[in-house]
């Protein structure tokens, strides 16, 4: 049971975590807003699986990378706002670097000409 879950979410999880952290680096935001912003910025290339967004938020919070507080939304509704913690900022930097190394490597690999 446990194994299955891990396999299913391993890749997604890392990516989604990075996107959430990056989005929150721009400022505190509620869950819906995070999903919207990821889609806007990626010009709808990345569609957030909303179902896995909230468990991810909880996980990040449990790890202490983000914090949450209740506040009022733009239309004056009660909403839970997430913000990046100091620990999260450090984590974002580390993850970003890792991601860039990884994507550069993949990029090089894909550009390589057979010969």
């Amino acid at each position, binding site marked *: 049971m446990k194994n299955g879950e891990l396999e299913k979410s391993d890749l997604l999880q890392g990516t989604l975590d990075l996107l959430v952290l990056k989005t929150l680096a721009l400022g505190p935001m509620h*869950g819906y807003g995070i999903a919207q912003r990821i889609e806007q910025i990626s010009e709808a290339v990345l569609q957030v699986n909303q*179902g896995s967004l909230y468990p991810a938020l909880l996980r990040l919070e449990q790890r202490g990378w983000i914090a949450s507080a209740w506040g009022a939304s733009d239309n004056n509704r009660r909403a*839970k706002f997430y913000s990046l913690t100091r620990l999260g900022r450090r984590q974002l930097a580390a993850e970003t670097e890792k991601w860039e190394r990884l994507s550069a490597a993949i990029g090089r690999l894909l550009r390589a000409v057979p010969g």
Partner: protein
Amino acid sequence: MNWHRSWAARTRGLLRRGKREREMNEEVGFHLEMQAREFERRGMSAKEALQAARRRFGGVEQVKEEYRRQGSVPWLESFGKDLGFGLRMLRKSPLVTAVALVSLALGLGASGAIFNVLDSLLFAKLPVPHPDQLVVLKIRRPEEPQPRVFYPAFRMWQGDSGVFSGVIAFSRSSSMLVRSLGAASTPRPASTGDELGEWVDGVLVSGSYFPVLGVHALLGRTLTADDDRVAGGHPVAMISHAYWQRRFAGDPAVLGRTLEVNGQLFAVVGVTPPGFFGAEVGEAPALFVPTAMQTQVHYVGNSDIEDGADATKPWTEQPHIGWLVAMARLRPGVSARQAAAAATVTYHQFAAANVDPKHPEILKKVPAVRIQVEPGAQGVSRLRDRDVALPLVTLMGAAVLLLLIACANTANLLLARASARRKEIAVRLSQGAGRARLVRQLLTESLLLAVIAGACGLLLARWGSGLLLRIASGRATGWPIDLSLGWHKLAFLTVACLATALLFGLAPALQATRLDLVSALKVAAGSTHGGGPRTRLPLGKLLVIAEVGLSLVLLVGAGLFVRTLQNLGGVDPGFQRSDLLLVRIHTQLMRLDPPRLHEMERRIQERMAALPGVRSASLSLHSPVSGSQHASGVEVPGYTPRPGEDMSVSEISVTPGYFKTLGIPFRDGRDFASRDSADAPHVTIVNEAMARKYFRGRDAVGQRFGYDTEKPREFEIVGVVRDARFYDLREAAPPMMFMPAAQSGESLRDVELRTARGMAASLVPQARQALREVEPTLAIGSVGTMEQQLERSLTQDRAVARLTAFFGAVALLLASIGLYGVISYGVARRRSEIGLRLALGAARGQVLGLVLRETLQLATVGVALGLLGALAATRLAASQLYGLTATDPLTVGAAIVVMAAVASLAGYMPARRAAEVDPLTALRSD
């Protein structure tokens, strides 16, 4: 990484589950609303938009579940879920739950209460520093009674400083009449019933007592070695915390106050701490006075007075009066064996120096004497005597039996319920739930049941142990032993609870989850009882057989004890028990010389006999069944004792008219008369047992014999009276002799009044009043009828009989529930078979017989096994029975008949239901 942080958060999440759940719902709701609004903006209708938002979000419930799972500790949460589920299941079948809970709580509570008392009595250590260093020193003589310790011997052991870091000696006294002088501020308690003072228990203690035990004074100082040097020279006392509170309202000014104790003035120097009751467990002394004051407080109780002693001189100077309990503190590293060797050598030196040269035969025996060193961490206690502890052990056995029956019964009920849930379990198994997970859930339910029952049991145990103590002690206050629930008592209850849960829960859980899925699922939805009869019935039947068997053991035991009580209540004590009033007086405190004492006793007798409603009156050293016994050795001319033969004869000093008042008939000779005065030749009246043993075949009247080692005298027998049970209703009278008080010179302590029919109890005030008129300064003790005294002597037997009878009744009820359940189940399962039989022409009576026969088969096997168990178990209780043997056919037969009757009744109801089966419906339902 960060696992601790995330676990802390999860645990917090678990604790705040309600809040988390609300917030999660709100957050998801907000998300859906925003998304729907967005879709609406793009032109959807409100309804479409909301549906689209939900689709976009994915499975809302799955997400929530995932969110929940992550936010908490999975197994703890599933345990919580199991608990909730278990509670719902318990609520769903309230009758089953109630029967299980009540029976388990009774079993747990009863065994808990008894364990509590036993534990406090047998295992609790004295509340002093390093109790494990304490030992008890006992004198062991081969083939002779073991005397209490002589004061000079105790002094010599104090010199054994190589093995002992300290030695103490003490002796309890139950008759100390205390008057507080110059204490106008504190009102006298109303309960004493006597203007002359209050009777309290006290202890005479050596000066080393408090320092060696390591007990410090709560107030003032403790007694020390300097308070115990010169006989009669240390009028100082400590009082107990309880007495200080009760009598002096906790007033610190009690220090330096003067108390009159049995006529001697004592200065209070200190108060003992609250939890300290002395080294004798089960006693609650109010006073501690130095052993040096023995003569001054008229201590005479519990002593072994040997040849060459003079009991009128201070006992601290007497090498031949054993009256003390000796305890010591071992030096670290010294073994009990080393200490015993050293103490024995010292004792031999002591004996060699002290034995009267006139008795060389005693000196010859000295080398065989050994000093025994026994563990003393728990102090000493007469409550640990076999006859006090044994009834408690018996009751413990009965309570454990009851608990086992309750377990078997609960297991059966759970089994029945589990089989009703076969389909549910099969569905869950087929959906991939692990068997272990299901067993865990079923066990959680059992545990829940056991814990609730245990909590009820705990309350019952707390309440019951106090009650038990009062019953067992026969006193309103019980024994002052510490009954607080310490950790090992709670541990006992916890372990009992868990063991019970496993015992009744595991088998049904394993059985219920061992399913053939296909057949279980195939069963028609309407049927509550799924197939696989072979998997369910044997265990259920086995449990019922066990229940019947165990119940029979309890029934037989209860029957034996109830009949013992009946026999004891109906035993002819040899005197007329009704219409007899007893008054305890304390003439010894008046310090009269023998002629004036005798004169006062004569006046009391005359005045009492003249009371209206009184037929005759007498005085004696003690009345029958009062718990007192005085005995000494006799020398009878022409009677050669076997080696080591017990030549002791119990003696009582009485006034003329004693036998008439008690209703003991003369077999031969005459009563004492006024001519048997102090200067007349010594005369005695003996009982038949004495006449039989020492004057077999001869006419006892007119015979002479020598008696008393203290003041050897020759007695002439002037009368023989019928045997009467003076000491123990269970035992035939020992050889006894009576002597005229005028000749023995003893202070008499009991007044007996033979009253007109039914007047004994109503004459109490008149008797008191008359005594006061005769002698205003005479201290009066307890007043009561002989019937009350006899009742009191049967307190323990009554407690055992009542409690085992109660346990037996509960066991019977549980066994019948078990039988009923199993038979009903069988009938329901075989409905179609029964219907078929009926359709094929079987008579209804035949069906009834079929089911009844099955019931009785089960009961018979149970009874047979139970009989074997009863034979083994009741043998252990044989010594507590009276007037019947442990295999008494009548009792065993009655138990079997009762069991069979109850079994038939339990089987009859389902049998009738079987006989009333309508063949058509029964056949159609399959």
